């Protein structure tokens, strides 16, 4: 049986310092077994500015068994599956300790975003890119953050349309946007200079 008293306390605790940590956990429905966690992309990384949602489901043995976590937001990262959002993180597996909480686990996930471990990859394609062509990796990660993790900014399609209207070929616009990580202004600069 899930220890719901503890989950309840965790939620309260988490909402208390939401300002400081930026980490939010809220139930998906009435059922406390299914939750949604939200973490901000760490500053100074290609994930900066993004808000990432993580599906959390608690096993019956929680907190004695680790919570199951999976990115709901698409993210480009060597230790996170670009397809399914599955996370490769030791504390979510054998290194889990009942003394950890949802908040601390999410903090660890956030830390993983800043410090990828390409030698222990979840997504081999991303990991290879990270190791062989770091610049492209940064570009793609930023582009994915722009595209999938930013609700407020313009969607990619709108940016493409906007730039295409300025008279650049659409295909070129797309590739340039991707190369600069989705930044509209940088893309324009590049398009004009190239």
């Amino acid at each position, binding site marked *: 049986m899930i220890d719901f008293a503890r989950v309840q306390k965790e939620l309260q605790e988490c909402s208390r310092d939401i300002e400081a940590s930026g980490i939010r956990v809220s139930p998906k429905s009435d059922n406390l077994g299914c939750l949604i966690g939200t973490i901000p992309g760490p500053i100074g990384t290609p994930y900066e500015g993004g808000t990432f949602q993580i599906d959390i489901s608690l096993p019956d043995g929680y907190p*004695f068994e680790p919570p199951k976590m999976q990115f709901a937001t698409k993210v480009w990262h060597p230790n996170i599956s670009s397809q399914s959002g599955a996370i490769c993180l030791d504390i979510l597996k054998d290194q889990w300790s009942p003394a950890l909480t949802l908040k601390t686990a999410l903090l660890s996930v956030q830390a993983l975003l800043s410090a990828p471990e390409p030698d222990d990859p979840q997504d081999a394609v991303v990991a290879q890119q990270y190791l062989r062509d770091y610049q492209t990796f940064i570009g793609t990660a930023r582009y994915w953050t722009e595209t999938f993790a930013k609700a407020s900014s313009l969607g990619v399609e709108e940016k493409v349309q906007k730039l295409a209207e300025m008279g650049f070929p659409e295909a070129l616009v797309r590739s340039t946007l991707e190369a600069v990580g989705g930044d509209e202004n940088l893309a324009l600069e590049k398009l004009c200079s190239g």
Partner: protein
Amino acid sequence: MDDCLSSDEDYYYSDRDSLDGLENEEADFQCAPPKGPSTKVITKESLLSAQKEDLRKVMDMLSLREHHARTLLIYYRWDAERLLAVLVEKGKACLFAEAGVKVVEHQDLDSPSFPTITCDICMEDLPSEETTRVDCGHCFCNNCWTEHFIVKINEGQSRRIRCMAHKCNAICDEAVIRNLVNKRHPDMAEKFDRFLLESYIEDNKRVKWCPSTPHCGNAIRIEDDEFCEVECSCGLQFCFSCLSEAHSPCSCVMWELWAKKCRDESETVNWITAHTKACPKCHKPVEKNGGCNLVSCICGQAFCWLCGGATGRDHTWSSITGHSCGRFKAEREKKSERAKRDHYRYMHYYNRYRAHIDSFKQESKLKETIQERVSVTEERDSRLRDFSWVNNGLSRLFRSRRVLSFSYPFAFYMFGDELFKDEMTQEEREIKQHLFEDQQQQLEANVEKLSKFLEEPFDQYGEDKVMEIRMQVINLSVITDTLCQKLYDCIENDLLASLQFGSHNIAPYKSKGIERASELTTCWKANNSDKYLPSDCGASGGTAEFDQPSGSGSSDESGCPLRKRARKDGLGGGLFDLNLPAEVVDRN
């Protein structure tokens, strides 16, 4: 001839001596415990004492409590020598830290200053008596601990349950686990104890379960070389390394491949490819039993043997009406040639392997016949009294047959393409093969001779003739023994040693046959076996096998003083309470 005879006599007596030695093996081992090949049988009953013995070494060496010693040994897979090496190399602190052992210089016992403690797991405030502090100093409530332990036991982690605190590497005190779990799930506590006990077998490279089915409940412990063949007290002989039947001089890899090859139908399939073609209509394989290239299937369909295509029925010897395939299918031809050759090669080795196995089975019946002949001859009051030569000869015959039969699968792989294609040139291979086959044939010839003499109805012969047979049997026994040894040497030194890829090891040749593991006898057992069973912690359904005195009487002598003392003290099962640290047990 005289020379030969005397040497035979020598052999004869020495063989008898050594056989005597074999019977009294156990007594010998007890006289000189650390020496000699001492494969041991560990039964359900002696498992605990076997474990204790190793624990004691480490406890004495490092002056530790039992559960700490167990944690260390489990971490180092019961390899006390490696543990010692780490101790010397890295020091005690590092040794302990890596294995998760925290030895406390007790902090003020359960800090009584706080009446309530907040458990970091359930986040409740609880009276301190409902919490437990473990060696590493972390304290949580009993409920949470229990939950944690149960989850870990169910996950099969009993042997290394860590503290609940994040990044705390310490292994929890087994007594704490046992007590807490026992309160809620006594069956689970039992399971936990069993896991700890069986760790000695499952985490230990020197110990393996006997592979008998139905399982005899025993495990076998070897002393040094894992490439050896053993006999469990249940009578099963097996290869310790791969746990399949004893197969030397075949290596484990070879034997596995061979057994699989014999089991599945791959060779039948090969034969079918080489000799048949599928009917184009009903797809049954059709074998051509002569005649021209127009073949008709039992379903009535005619087809061309050369190309497999359906045809009409009119034909001459060389052509079929309205059909000209003409094209020579070189590729297919080659493939079927190859399959035919491979199959032929396999059959060659298989037939010989099988033949020796069959002879062995036939000869097993000989044993009874020979016993009868012996008793008949014995009644005929003659100067022939001693018939151990027949039995010795027969044992020699069985052992040599075994060697011979397994030498065929060995040769199949050693000189085939499957395993060592790139290891040697064709020339090298031929030279080696000749060398090996030479040895093999010599052995074969002598084994057959030995078999022939043993089958003689010596009870119907006169004394002189019997004496002659006796001499021949003794003589041939020595020769086959030497030849077996030579064959093993050849395999080990000339054939396997030079291989570069893959390691193939074989169990050493044992002139006296596969060694039977002896019962493990320790002071602990002599001491406690009678107390152990009732309080049996987990070795469920243990039958009272241990009642049989293990081997010879000398175990009594060695265990005597201790046993007496233990009985007097009458600890009432306390000795086997895993809860008690060993020091306490000792003091008692």
